[in-house]
């Protein structure tokens, strides 16, 4: 008899597709990557369940980075954009109720963080974080300013492409994912050692958001579309049955 939820375990993560832990051109990975093999273990309730985040926890401006840190009557400086898309699983099913958290630098490439020392100035009206919960169809959207590229101490002249970080919760803790979104046409993408941990052009393309003129608001904000795919669940028909019964 099954003691688990009515859905099956998660499809194993494709480690041949996901980045490796050790990627020396991204220098920090050298001493922060495990050397032993990962221990494989099928998912159990511990990974097939996940915390629930209700729409009720969201503030009105949580998905508006142009305004959520701005003084009254002010707004963040930079190219105004809408980022929207859907959260799906590997079977193409929408993932409703998924919490997304985003963070980014301002239009000049400066992060609002105590440990950040880049000389580009902070924008007094830009904090750089937002969050949203997907609707029944798995869709989400937020409004922000396009982040600028910024230099980082890796190689002698390394610059991150413009990017927005995403943290995503699905319906099982095994789906937990953090990734980055890049922007169509950015010439820094192929030069970046962090993008370089991705194993194929197809993987890079999956993290590169196209400009979306259909969703652009005339005279206001351009739009980019970014879909996110989380691990899928197996069907359970033949699971947990004693052989022969």
């Amino acid at each position, binding site marked *: 008899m099954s003691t688990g939820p009515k859905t099956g375990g998660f499809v194993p993560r494709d480690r041949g597709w996901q980045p490796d832990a050790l990627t020396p051109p991204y220098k920090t990975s050298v001493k922060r990557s495990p050397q032993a093999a990962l221990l494989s273990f099928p998912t159990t309730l*511990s990974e097939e369940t*996940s915390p629930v985040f209700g729409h009720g926890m969201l*503030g009105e401006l949580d998905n508006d980075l142009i305004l959520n840190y701005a003084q009254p009557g002010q707004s963040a400086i930079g190219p105004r954009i809408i980022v929207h898309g859907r959260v799906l699983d590997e079977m193409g099913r929408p993932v409703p109720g998924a919490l997304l958290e985003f963070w980014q630098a301002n239009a000049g490439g400066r992060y609002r963080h105590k440990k950040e020392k880049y000389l580009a100035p902070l924008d007094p009206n830009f904090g750089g974080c937002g969050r949203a919960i997907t609707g029944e169809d798995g869709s989400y959207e937020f409004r922000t300013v396009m982040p600028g590229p910024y230099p980082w101490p890796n190689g002698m002249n390394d610059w991150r492409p413009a990017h927005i*970080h995403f943290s995503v919760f699905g319906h099982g803790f095994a789906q*937990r994912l953090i990734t980055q979104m890049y922007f169509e046409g950015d010439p820094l993408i192929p030069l970046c050692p962090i993008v370089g941990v991705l194993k194929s052009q197809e993987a890079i393309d999956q993290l590169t958001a196209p400009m979306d003129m259909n969703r652009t608001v005339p005279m206001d904000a351009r739009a980019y579309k970014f879909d996110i795919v989380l691990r899928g669940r197996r069907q359970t028909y033949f699971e947990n049955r004693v052989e022969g019964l």
Partner: protein
Amino acid sequence: MVQILDYLRESPSQTAGPYVHIGCTPNFTGIEVYGGDLGTAMKTGPVQGQEIVIKGTVFDGTGTPLRDAMIEIWQPDAAGLFASANETRGTPDPNFTGWGRSPGDMETGEFTFETVKPGAVPMPDGRMQAPHITAWIVARGINIGLHTRIYFEDEAEANAKDPLLSGIEHQNRVPTLLARKEGEGQYRFDIHLQGPNETIFLDI
């Protein structure tokens, strides 16, 4: 030729980077846009079971503490039930979220979780697992979040029968998954990303 399998591919992971706190624990880095940081309070009222504190530090391959990691934990309540939409076995403790998130101390990197000792949870086939907490570590330099489990050294009997622990080939590495008891309700779980005491990480 055959039909094309039309499954989608999981979005590739990327490092959380050094500024993960801006998005996940903004108050911690001085950005006060939400009421508070998610995951800081796992107990929302009087809870059932034994209240415990787990402290630990994440170390890199040189033995240096990470001061820019983010650790999340996910666990059942004292009765072994999850505060999850897909918990079908009963009603979990209404005052316990089961989910915690810690950026660690900005100077020392030490993380702290004030939680309850989890109850045992069955495998899909009905075998019981020893009490454990699922942990997930992200940081600058970590390309894909690392999953591990926190078991308890004072649950020796249950640990001996646990399907995951008992199946590990290198039994000398099992202690890397055991939280050390430092006092009544006080545990330490250090995480070593690399090297001789490397924590066992899971492909789960």
